[in-house]
């Protein structure tokens, strides 16, 4: 762990967090914390509230109940990789311009890219294996190359907490391997990395900690234990239960035993 993790108060704590869409909970009574410098996967079946949780962590979705405590951090210290579908891939912008957006906090809305920032963008591109792609248009890139561009932009952001939403969906094996290497480097820098993933094998191989979510937390802790067959079975059953006419949630009616705090 690097210096960042040693700094106190870098944890992100969730206290009985519920995030609801139209009163139906997408994330239900979640408590726990992401330790500074930790590398956590958020796994679970479709509709388990994984992306919703990331958006709530980003402050993009309001928390219906409970609270998220970001300690000394603010959402400004967070870097966020949205799902690829949310980006306009046909927009006429060059790779260099897209990566330079990562320096937004430093340049602001009006500052131009300085020589230093242009150099930094070049280095970020070379770190993701895209040397010489600066002048290419993003529309001409493959899905894997485009994902590398987004990782280069995250490198430029230099964020303390990095949230990744399905970073390897529809991405080829080699790109996935390279990008996992970047994630490992982030971790050794002491950054906190939280990634939504649905490939359990990938999670087991590369992520020491896992939050298994099925709207409600199934288990949050060491990956091997969180992804036990019994837990996975339970997760699948819970994510499928959705009731149009569900009664209001009564306080204390929930089993919080599995949501533990490991900060």
């Amino acid at each position, binding site marked *: 762990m690097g210096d960042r993790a040693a700094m106190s108060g870098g944890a992100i704590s969730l206290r009985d967090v519920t995030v609801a869409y139209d009163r139906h909970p997408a994330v239900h009574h979640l408590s726990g914390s992401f330790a500074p410098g930790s590398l956590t996967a958020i796994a679970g079946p479709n509709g388990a509230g994984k992306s919703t949780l990331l958006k709530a962590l*980003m402050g*993009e979705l309001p928390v219906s109940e409970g609270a998220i405590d970001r300690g000394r951090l603010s*959402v*400004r210290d*967070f*870097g*966020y990789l*949205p799902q690829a579908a*949310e*980006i*306009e891939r046909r*927009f*006429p*912008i*060059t790779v260099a*311009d*897209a990566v330079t*957006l990562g320096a*937004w*906090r430093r*340049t602001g*809305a*009006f500052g131009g890219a300085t020589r230093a920032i242009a150099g930094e963008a070049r280095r970020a591109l070379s770190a993701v294996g895209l040397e010489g792609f600066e002048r290419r*248009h993003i529309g001409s890139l493959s899905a894997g190359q485009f994902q590398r561009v987004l990782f280069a*932009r995250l490198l430029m*952001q230099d964020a303390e907490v990095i949230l990744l939403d399905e970073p390897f969906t529809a991405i080829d094996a080699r790109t996935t391997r390279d990008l996992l290497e970047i994630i490992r480097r982030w971790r050794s820098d002491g950054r906190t990395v939280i990634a939504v993933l649905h490939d359990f094998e990938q999670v087991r191989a590369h992520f020491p900690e896992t939050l298994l979510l099925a709207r409600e937390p199934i288990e949050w802790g060491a990956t091997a234990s969180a992804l036990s067959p019994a837990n996975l079975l339970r997760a699948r059953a819970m994510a499928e239960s959705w009731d149009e006419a569900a009664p209001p949630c009564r306080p204390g009616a929930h089993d919080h035993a599995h949501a533990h705090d490991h900060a």
Partner: protein
Amino acid sequence: MTLYSALVEPFADYGFMRRALVATLALSLGSGPIGVLLMLRRMSLVGDAMAHAVLPGAAIGFLIAGGLSLPMMGLGGLVAGLSVALLSGLVSRTTALNEDASFASFYLSSLALGVLIVSLRGSNVDLLHVLFGTILAIDAESLCLVGGIASLTLLAIAAVYRPLVAECFDPGFLRAVGGRGPLYHLLFMFLVVINLVAGFQALGTLMAVGMMTLPAVVARLWAQTLPGMFAVATGVGAVSGLVGLIASFHLGVASGPTIILTASVIYAASLLAGPPSPLRRLVRRPHLSA
């Protein structure tokens, strides 16, 4: 007919033709880039709806001024256009309706109200002027307004170019870095409205958006970069204005529709001859080595 009498004489001999030409050139400077950004935001038809939404405000300005007065109608149109843009934005954020659906409902109400107001007090000729424009009747005052709007538009785009690009390319990212996307979206809608107000004296509320949409789609066919698209769109607007005015002068037809039809002809030609054209597919060319 000599080339001089065909191309230059109309402008040399008639002040109204000169003013019309300057107005269309100024229009193309502002509306070209705005149209490109509208298209890239997939809002081309929202621009069209917005143009209709401007009408009741213009009609009220028409009533207050007691006749066709561009500054008065422009002010009214600005207020009406911005109100519809804000209301649509509000409705789409607070209900299940998409922005295009809420725009469609607001602009229809707005258009009906505008036509009703004009028909209450004005003649049919006035209604025709409001709907289809009177570019040949542009006076010096209106010219200043159109020129001022074009200048303001270019300066504003230059100032907020990066946030506009970021908001369009990846709105989620801009939100994540605290980039105040909605603010720039609103500023952009303001620019759309003032350019429609400028366009409507020349082309009327029904075709004001023509100087935005048609040059923009032509630009998309020819240019790869955003600045390139701005340049092509502006050029297409300017050429349409010039050619349209000359053609309408010699053929004795209405100038507004002629300008828009000229842009349509350029669009059709670009479809056939532009880079991704069907004609080019007929010619087999060897592929490149890298």
